[in-house]
């Protein structure tokens, strides 16, 4: 696909920026978590952060598709290159987060790397789901532009709420174990579901994007 390399180049650049942003959010979350919980539970932290980042990815995707159609398509990036470049970028972000998480697990938690690898399919599945959902919502926004503002506001609200909930909920001992168990036992199903969401959301996005116009 001609022009894909330019798209990949640009989205690597963007990925770097967004990974940095994710780290900032993670750190902020970590600090908040330390402040709000009595007795920091290092096991719970990654789960909480993951939830936050999943939601962040969804919201970020919506904003991303909105920006990109008015930015790179006028610069003659084909819609196909934009689509694949975006998926690549999401993968980069998700992959980097996973690596960082794995490091955290290995260094800080009791379950260590072994526990991390058991969870990994579920984590990957959740990432796939959020990327897919983001693509789906991005597609909806492209098609029904005005819905964008409403959707983004709602989701930001939800994100804020869950963020707050996570901070307090996970400070209670035990919930993290529940989640960890759920994730490890159903890892494969979560992965498959996630991939299914990714595929359907991505396909809808691909179709909508393929016919989209640059508007003001």
């Amino acid at each position, binding site marked *: 696909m001609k*022009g894909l390399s330019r798209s990949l180049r640009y989205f690597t650049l963007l990925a770097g920026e967004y990974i940095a942003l994710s780290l900032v959010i993670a750190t902020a979350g970590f600090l908040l978590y330390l402040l709000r919980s009595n007795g920091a539970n290092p096991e719970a932290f990654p789960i909480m952060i993951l939830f936050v980042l999943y939601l962040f990815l969804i919201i970020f995707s919506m904003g991303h598709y909105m920006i990109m159609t*008015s*930015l790179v398509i006028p*610069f003659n990036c084909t819609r196909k290159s934009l689509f694949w470049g975006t998926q690549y970028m999401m993968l980069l972000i998700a992959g980097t987060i996973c690596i960082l998480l794995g490091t955290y697990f290995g260094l800080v938690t009791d379950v260590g790397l072994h526990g991390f690898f058991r969870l990994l399919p579920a984590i990957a599945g959740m990432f796939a789901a959020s990327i897919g959902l983001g693509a789906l919502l991005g597609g909806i926004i492209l098609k029904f532009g005005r819905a964008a503002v409403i959707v983004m506001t709602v989701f930001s609200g939800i994100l804020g709420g869950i963020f707050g909930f996570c901070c307090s909920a996970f400070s209670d001992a035990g919930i993290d174990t529940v989640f960890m168990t759920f994730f490890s036992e159903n890892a494969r199903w979560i992965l498959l579901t996630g991939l299914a969401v990714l595929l359907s959301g991505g396909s809808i996005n691909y179709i909508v994007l393929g016919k989209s116009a640059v508007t003001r």
Partner: protein
Amino acid sequence: MSTGKLICNDLVKKYGKKEILHGIDLELEPDRIYGLIGRNGAGKTTLLSTLTAQSPVTSGTVTYNGLPVWENQDALDHICFSRELNPLIGWGANSLKVKDYLKAASIFFPHWDKQLAERLVQDFELETKKKICKLSKGMMSMVTIIIALASKADMTFLDEPVAGLDVIARDAFYRELLSEYTETGRTFLISTHIIEEAEDLFEETIFLNDGRILLKESTQALLERAIHISGKAEDVDAATTGLAVYHPEKLGRSKAVTVLLQEGQCIADGYDLSSQPVNLQNLMVALCGPDSQHSVPDSQQNTPDVKTGGRKGR
């Protein structure tokens, strides 16, 4: 440097049920400066958008060098449509800083000229660390212009590039454009409302009215066949019988009309009339304004609106 033409055939564009462009045929050649003139709402931006694959056509074809432009990187690599940046929105591309915007352009345009971009940023005193949405209207126009010029695209389109620029800046833009054109032979198509200033730049002028091409002709040939006739009303009517007459202006016994002569035609002799040349701006008002009601004799009525004097409308 490619020598391809950008050709569109029977281009129709609808937004929902509303048809904006009604079957446009256009052929744009290399090494030309074209002017695109038309009222707000005539469909200029829509036309430019569909010609450059930024919007899909409803029907019809657009090709560059024989290749369809839609989703075709090989064709798109030779094209640049630098859109007007909307000062009203704070999201989308407008949320980027100028330097990030230019960086993105430099990645996607294969022939991007970094030195030219840097020189223009300096000359125009553009603050690159500012977000686009925070720029003044004039500065936004500068960004649009820099993208267009530095893209080095064979077919470059600019939509109202001088909106918001003061006189001195406009003059600087015209000179920059000419300098680039004479050096590279790129084709530029410029849509503008500031017609009087720009008419000397346009080798060919295209009038777009209500989603149709009214005419496309060498600017000079067009202006040579346009005359503004004024005098006693009966004399004016008598002298212009059988000619394509537009925009009648009346006051008391006096009348003035704008005449577009076809090849071989002339104003009848023997009447005491003033005849004056018409500039592009006045011509546009005459042809596209609300009082343009005209009389075109039946013998000249084969296609809607205006025929070009002897030459094809494409």
